[in-house]
C-alpha cells in the first residue's frame, strides 16, 4: 500500500504518512501475502467461543456507503466490531447526501470526528481517491464505480488459496459482464500479482480486450480451476441497451450449468446472484460452489485490512491474539 498520493502538489502528507487501500495497484506481492496470512490468523481466532479481539479498542471506523450493499457493508462493520473498534455507518439515503452535500463536504464533516479509517463505496470512479485527499484517516475503497474493489479481490484470493492450497499457477476463468465490473478489474490485477492466470469469457460487447486473454466461447472455461461468475446487472439488460439481445440468449450462451462444468472445478460469485441467469441454482448450491466461503472470507480479510492499516504488522498480532 502506498503512502498518501499528492495530487497537484497541494496536500502535504500528515506526519508518518497515511496508508490507504484504494486499488490493487497500490499493493505489492508482499503486501498481499501479509494480508492473507493475517486473515488466516483471524480465521483461527474466529473459531473460538469469544470472537471479539481487543486489538482496535478505541479506534473509529466510518463506513460511508453511497450504494446499496449487503455483503461488503455488513462485513466491514462486523470486522471492525470483532476488533473492538467503534463503527459509524453513514448511508447516502437519510443523510445530508440527500440534501445535496458534496462528497468532499461529507468527508470533511465525518473527518471532524477524527476517524482512523474511512471505508467508502461510491458509484463513481475516483471517489476513494477524492476522499483520501480530504481526510487524515486511512481510506479503504469498498468499490468506486467500475474502477476498483480491492477487498473483494483479497477475499477471493483468500478463498481460492483455502480451496486449492496455492495461488501460483491457478487458472481462473472470469465469466460475464467484465466491462462494468470493478470486481473483475481488481481480481485480474490481484491474480496477476500472485502468479495465477486469468481468462475473460463472455459476449464481445461486455468483455474488454487488453486486460487478460479473452474468449467469447463458454467452452473456454474447461481448462480453469476456478469459474468466477459475474453478476449480470439488470440495468445493462434494458431494451435498447443492446449489450446482449436478451437475458434468455445470455443464459443459453454463457450461463453456468452443471453440464458446462467438469469435476474438480470450483465456482465463485461475488453476489448477489441472479439464479437462472448467469448461474443455475443447482450450481450455486452444489459442492463445487465456494460462494458461502467467500462471504466468510470477507469478514477475516477485512479484519486483516483494518488491522494492517492501523497497527504495526503481523508480529504484534501473534502476541495480542495469541494464535501463533
Amino acid at each position, binding site marked *: 500500500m502506498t503512502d498518501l*498520493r499528492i*495530487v*497537484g*502538489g*497541494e496536500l502535504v502528507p500528515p506526519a508518518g504518512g497515511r496508508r490507504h487501500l484504494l486499488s490493487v495497484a497500490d499493493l505489492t506481492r508482499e503486501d498481499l501475502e501479509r494480508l492473507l496470512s493475517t486473515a488466516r490468523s483471524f480465521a483461527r481466532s474466529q473459531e473460538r467461543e469469544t470472537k471479539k479481539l481487543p486489538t482496535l479498542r478505541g479506534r473509529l471506523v466510518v463506513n460511508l456507503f453511497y450504494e446499496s450493499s449487503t455483503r461488503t457493508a455488513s462485513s466491514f462493520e462486523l470486522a471492525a466490531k470483532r476488533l473492538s473498534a467503534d463503527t459509524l455507518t453513514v448511508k447516502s439515503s437519510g443523510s445530508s447526501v440527500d440534501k445535496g452535500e*458534496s*462528497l*468532499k463536504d461529507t468527508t470533511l464533516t465525518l473527518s471532524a470526528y477524527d476517524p482512523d479509517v474511512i471505508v467508502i463505496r*461510491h458509484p*463513481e*470512479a*475516483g*471517489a476513494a*481517491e*477524492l476522499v483520501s485527499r480530504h481526510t487524515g484517516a486511512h481510506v479503504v475503497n469498498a468499490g*468506486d*464505480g*467500475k*474502477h*476498483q474493489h480491492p477487498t473483494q479481490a483479497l477475499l477471493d484470493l483468500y478463498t481460492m488459496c483455502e480451496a486449492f492450497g496455492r495461488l501460483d499457477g491457478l487458472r481462473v476463468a472470469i465469466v460475464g459482464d467484465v466491462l462494468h*465490473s*470493478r470486481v473483475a*478489474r481488481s481480481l485480474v490485477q490481484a491474480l496477476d500479482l500472485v502468479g495465477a492466470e486469468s481468462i475473460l469469457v463472455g459476449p464481445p460487447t461486455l468483455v*474488454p*480486450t*487488453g*486486460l487478460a486473454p479473452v474468449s467469447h466461447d463458454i467452452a473456454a472455461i474447461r481448462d480453469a480451476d476456478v469459474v468466477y461468475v459475474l453478476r449480470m446487472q439488470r440495468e445493462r439488460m434494458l431494451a435498447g441497451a443492446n449489450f446482449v439481445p436478451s437475458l434468455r440468449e445470455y443464459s443459453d450462451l454463457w450461463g453456468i450449468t452443471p453440464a458446462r462444468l467438469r469435476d474438480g472445478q470450483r465456482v465463485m460469485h461475488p453476489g448477489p446472484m441472479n439464479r437462472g441467469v448467469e448461474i443455475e441454482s443447482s450450481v450455486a448450491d452444489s459442492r463445487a460452489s465456494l460462494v458461502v466461503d467467500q462471504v466468510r472470507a470477507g469478514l477475516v480479510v477485512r479484519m486483516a485490512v483494518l488491522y494492517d492499516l492501523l497497527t504495526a504488522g503481523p508480529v504484534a498480532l501473534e502476541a495480542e491474539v495469541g494464535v501463533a
Partner: protein
Amino acid sequence: MLVGREGHDDVVVRGARVLDPLEGVDATIDVRIDGGVIAQLGQDLDTNEHRVVDGAGLTLVPAFVDPHVHLRTPGREDEETIESGTAAAAAGGYCAILAMPNTDPVLDDADALRGLRARAAREAHVPVGFFAAITKGQAGEELTELGTLAGAGAVGFTDDGRPVTAAGVMRRALQYNAITGRPLAVHCEEPTLTRGGHAHGGAVAAELGIGGWPSLGESLIVARDLELAAETRQPVHLMHLSARESVDHLRRAHANAVRATGEVTPHHLCLTDEAVRSLDPNLKMNPPLRTDDDRTALIEALRDGTIGAVATDHAPHSAEEKDAPFEAAPFGVIGLETAFPALYTYLVEPGVLTLETVLERMSAGPAAIFGLERPRIAVGARANLTLLDLAGSWRVEREELRSRSRNSWLLGKRLLGRVALTIAGGRVAFS
C-alpha cells in the same frame, strides 16, 4: 469584430531579440511604439517621454491569438468574467481571444451579443471576439439568425460544447453561412458513441474501469463535416482535434482542396491518457487525452501546418464542481496563462517543435483562420507584442493565477518561459 478597453501607449522596448519570421525580422534592436503603433525599429532609438522597457536577454514576438476561450459570462461569473478571463489572457501573452457562446443563456441573439460587446469595451484587458451559436439554444435544431448576428459583430459561429448532431442541420448551416463569410467552427462528437465516456476509450480506461470516449466519437463527425464542407463548397473549422484519425481525415481533405482548418490544445500536445491514472479531475477534458500515437500525430500535423492553430479551450470550472470523483467532475481545464510556457517546456526545449513553429501557430495561424489582423512586428503595424523571458523558470501556483478558476493541469509544475510584457491592440495589457 474585436472589442476591448480603449487606450494607446507610448513604449520603447530596449535591446530585446526581436523575432517575427514572417516579416523577416530577427535582430537585437529597439522597438518604439507611438500611440499604440509601431513607429520605428532600430538601434539606440530616442525614448522621448515613452515608457521604457528593458528587453535585454528577452525575446519580443508577435502576440498570441486564442480562438477558443470560455469566459463563462453570462451565467457563471463565479468561474470567469470578461475582466478576469482577459486578465489571464494578457498574462499569457495574448493580444486577442475569441469567446465561446455556450454560456447561460446561450449567446444566440443579437441584443445579447451587443450587451456583451458593450461590457467587453469597459472591462476587457485584451480585445475579445464573441462567437454566436449555430443553432438556437445550441439545441441542434433551428439555425440562429446568422446574418443578423454577423451584422451585430459575431466573430463566427459554433455550438461548442455540443455537436450539431443532425447532418441535415449542419449542411444547412454551412450553405446559409455563405452570406456571412464568418467561420463556422465545429465541436466534433458523435453523442451515441461518447455517452458515459470520461476518458479516451482505450487500454487505460478499460483497465481503470472508466467509461470510454473513443477516437471514433470524434473522427466520424470530422469525416462527416469535411464531406459536408466539400459538398457545399464552404469552409469549416474543426475545433480541439485529439485523434490521429481526425488528423488523417483533415490532411486528405486538404489534398482534395477542401477549405478546412483545425486547432489543437496544449494539453493534447503535451499529455496522454496515461496521465488519467492519477484520477485527478484536472486531467479530465473533452475531447479526452488520448494515446502517445495520437499525440505524435497532432504534433506532426501542427508542424506541417495541417493544423494551423493552437487553441487553449480555456474552460474554467469552480473548485466545488471540479473537486469531485473523476467520473463526476466536469470536463475542461484552464490554459490561457500557461499555454506558451507549457509548449515551450514540453515541446520546444526538448527539440520536438521549433520556437518559430509554435509562435506562428499561436499567432499568425489562428489570425488567418479567423480573418483577424495578423500581429506583426513592422513599422506602421498596430502594436500586438509579447515580451518573453525564455530562460525564466517559474512554478504554477494556484494563488497566482489570474483566472477566477484554478483547474489547471499544471498546478505545482515548474515551467520554462515567462511572459514579461503584453501589448494588445496598442495598449500595455500586462507587465
